[in-house]
């Protein structure tokens, strides 16, 4: 069965600094990988996905993610964090039937 691990419950970063939110996955076959963001009292919003092609994927709001097959990782990155990026971030992998989500990482960007 597929699984996703987000090893950090919370990531703190100063505004203007680069940020990384970590994700590793386990799945048989080629992975379909996704990042979603959840703001307070809202549903999940799609950020970006990796299906095939370039290992560096660019998405919404200036976020990008790097697919690393040898390390089975799909870390989310942004060169310069904004206070408004503070939210809960979920990594997910597509399984046979549905997306399996990680436990989420809370990103806190301090002014």
């Amino acid at each position, binding site marked *: 069965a597929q699984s996703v691990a987000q090893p950090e419950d919370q990531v703190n970063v100063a505004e203007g600094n680069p940020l990384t939110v970590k994700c590793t996955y386990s799945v048989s076959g080629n992975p379909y990988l*996704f990042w979603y963001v959840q703001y307070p009292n809202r*549903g999940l919003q799609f950020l970006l996905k990796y299906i095939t092609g370039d290992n560096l994927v660019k998405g919404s709001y200036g976020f990008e993610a790097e697919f690393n097959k040898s390390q089975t990782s799909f870390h989310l990155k942004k060169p310069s964090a904004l206070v408004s990026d503070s939210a809960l971030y979920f990594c997910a992998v597509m399984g046979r039937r549905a997306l399996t*989500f*990680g436990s989420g990482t809370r990103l806190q960007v301090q002014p």
Partner: protein
Amino acid sequence: GAGVSQSPSNKVTEKGKDVELRCDPISGHTALYWYRQSLGQGLEFLIYFQGNSAPDKSGLPSDRFSAERTGGSVSTLTIQRTQQEDSAVYLCASSPQRIYGYTFGSGTRLTVV
């Protein structure tokens, strides 16, 4: 519609009562999913509908939970004899194909008192 619509947005019910949660997916999306998000937790898969195929109910936590999807569109998640541990946000999502990922609704926050 433009997005996935869920109703009600909030529901408070007494323990032991039945509740129905509604999801109206994006028009043309053949796949529909229900997930549950407990306070501070990740997303727990509940059920999956794909077109006219039989639903995948493997994530439903007990036989008190059921769901149907009428006409390949609107879906209703029913919880019978609600318990306090059912309190959570119930999220619905739809998708045209697996590789596109999902579009989520804003969820229904269920509180069982």
